[in-house]
């Protein structure tokens, strides 16, 4: 078992004919993901190393049975692409694109909430279920199958933490990057709920950062609904207020969204918070045994 993506994933990539889109689609396929289709308007009928390209998601889904979408198009086309994938009935949409206007994200989020499609991202590295499927840009070679579920707002920091865990011998059920934007399609809570229900996952690692209150909300949810151990890391203890730290969502506004407040909220619900990525791995060893 794993969450979100696995061997049943049938992936259709929006923007497959772009340079990055092609590179990562093929990368995902090499890993074993079933990459069944691509969508690029006007390039229908072509193929990318054997992956058929369609003009619309509807056609791609009808012809290939795609159930998962990855969105790789530039920001001004990304919201439309997410909506198209949802309209075509895709179950899971992973949006890698960074820089989508915030109001577009709001509309997309509030629209998708009414339907069955789940969005992960945007501005995220994707989802990796080691040994099963990789949808996105997570460098899979650093991770192997195991019992630690990771959910994170950032990309490279996730690799850092994953790597520290790997060095202690832990593998992962799934690694989910929910993205660094203010309005992510899936929240910590959404993914933690999946890990809680996933029999393979025995420890959940939450990697948060400054800005918003999604870590605080997650803390409350964990306190009420999660039986599995959770370890957390929060980045940005030393971030100055009022400045966006790279991620659009990473900003301390006034006294809100500080790393300290998040760590406090998590610890109050029994979540152990490591102050460095290394410390997270140390705690994992304590919880699960070396």
């Amino acid at each position, binding site marked *: 078992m794993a969450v979100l993506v696995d061997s049943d994933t049938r992936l259709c990539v929006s923007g497959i004919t772009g340079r990055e889109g092609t590179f990562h689609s093929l990368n995902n396929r090499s890993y074993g993901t079933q990459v069944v289709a691509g969508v690029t308007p006007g390039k229908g009928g072509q193929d990318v190393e054997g992956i058929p390209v369609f003009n619309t998601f509807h056609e791609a889904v009808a012809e290939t049975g795609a159930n998962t979408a990855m969105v790789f198009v530039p920001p001004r086309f990304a919201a439309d692409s997410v909506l198209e994938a949802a309209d075509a009935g895709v179950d899971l949409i992973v949006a890698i694109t960074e820089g989508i206007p915030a109001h577009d994200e709001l509309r997309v989020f509030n629209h998708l909430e009414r339907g069955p499609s789940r969005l992960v991202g945007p501005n995220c590295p994707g989802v990796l279920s080691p040994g099963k499927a990789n949808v996105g840009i997570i*460098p899979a070679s650093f991770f192997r199958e195991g019992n630690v579920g990771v959910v994170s707002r*950032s990309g490279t*920091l996730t690799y850092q933490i994953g790597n520290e865990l790997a060095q202690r011998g832990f593998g992962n059920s799934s690694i989910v990057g929910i993205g660094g934007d203010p309005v992510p399609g899936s929240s910590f809570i959404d993914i933690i709920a999946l890990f809680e229900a996933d029999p393979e996952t025995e420890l959940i690692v939450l990697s948060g950062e400054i800005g918003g209150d999604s870590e605080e909300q997650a803390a409350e949810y964990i306190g009420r609904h999660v039986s599995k151990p959770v370890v957390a890391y929060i980045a940005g203890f030393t971030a100055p207020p009022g400045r966006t730290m*790279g991620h659009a969502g*990473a900003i301390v506004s*006034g006294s809100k969204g500080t790393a300290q407040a998040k760590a406090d909220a998590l610890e109050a619900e029994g979540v152990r918070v490591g102050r460095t990525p*290394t410390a997270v791995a140390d705690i994992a060893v304590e919880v699960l045994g070396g």
Partner: protein
Amino acid sequence: MDLLEYQGKQLFAKHGVPVSPGRPVTTVQEAVSAADELGYPVVVKAQVLIGGRGKAGGIKLAGDREAVEQHAGAILGMEIRGLRVRELWIEEASDIEDEYYAAFVFDRSAKKPMAMFSRMGGMDVEAITAEDPEAMRMLHVDPLLGFQDFHGRRLAFEAGIPEDVIRPVGEMLGKLYEVFVSEDATLVEVNPVVVKTDRSVNALDAKVTIDGNALYRHPQTAEMRNISDESPQERLAKERGLTYVPLDGNIGILGNGAGLVMSTLDVVAQAGGKPANFLDAAGGSKAEAITSAVEVILSNERVSALLLNIFGGITRCDEVAQGLIAAFRQVEPTVPFVVRLDGTNGPEGRALLAEAELPNLHIEETMLGAAEKVVELAG
């Protein structure tokens, strides 16, 4: 992207939000002719991106030409909480009976726009809520449905403002929401909304933040950019497409990915050091990005050591190493470098660096080790 008061008011006017006539000026002479055109009295207002202008003496009523000359002269060039005043807004004066507060913000938690309105305006919003939490009325707007008339009525009635201004205030809120959405703002704040002696309602201030990601669809707004208060590093980083945030320490920080860089700042601080900046060379960093980033960081003279922390995912460590080697050739740095290169093509990257024998460059295996080393070297 934050707009100056008068820039925000230009957007307000475009959407029918009532504002007072005025002129932006940059010299005393322009201020005087603007005031002559508008008619006296006028208000001379410092245009800086910071609150508390009034208390700092940056807003003055001028009843005649001499007063305009005097105030404009005093305010231009004044420093308000660290920001130099370079522009003024000369505005028709208003006879004010009442001051309210209105705003639209993103509520990240609810994932919806939030409308805020209070019958107490003209003071700091945190002071309003502190003085009387009930006085700040708030509600969420479904972004697919939009701001409805009932939202405006509800805020106005619940705030307890007089009967005769319920309708104009409700209408203004509707138009401010229009500004918020159609101008891709992430913040629209009016403090104060004023009721004038003729009982008309007017937006007397404007604090508007536009989503930088949406500027491509607002070319006119994009031209409003006020870059005068950026540091040279920030300006350079923006030109190179890098994300740079100045901090007040002496250790230059460079990494790939916002989360990892934030984490690096924290770990350096834990090791007892003081970072000079946040700089994300972004996922997929190519050689040129690394070279540019090093240039940007070293253009800050306070930097006495530099930490490069890379965990390669899309980013390939060999490319990073090449970029660093090129940077050394171009910049010929005089400060020590600590490098931690891990992830995709890590061994190849480290081998390239070893071969290049760059002066005063220290390779560390772990993030923690690298942080400790750079703190030691920075002194």
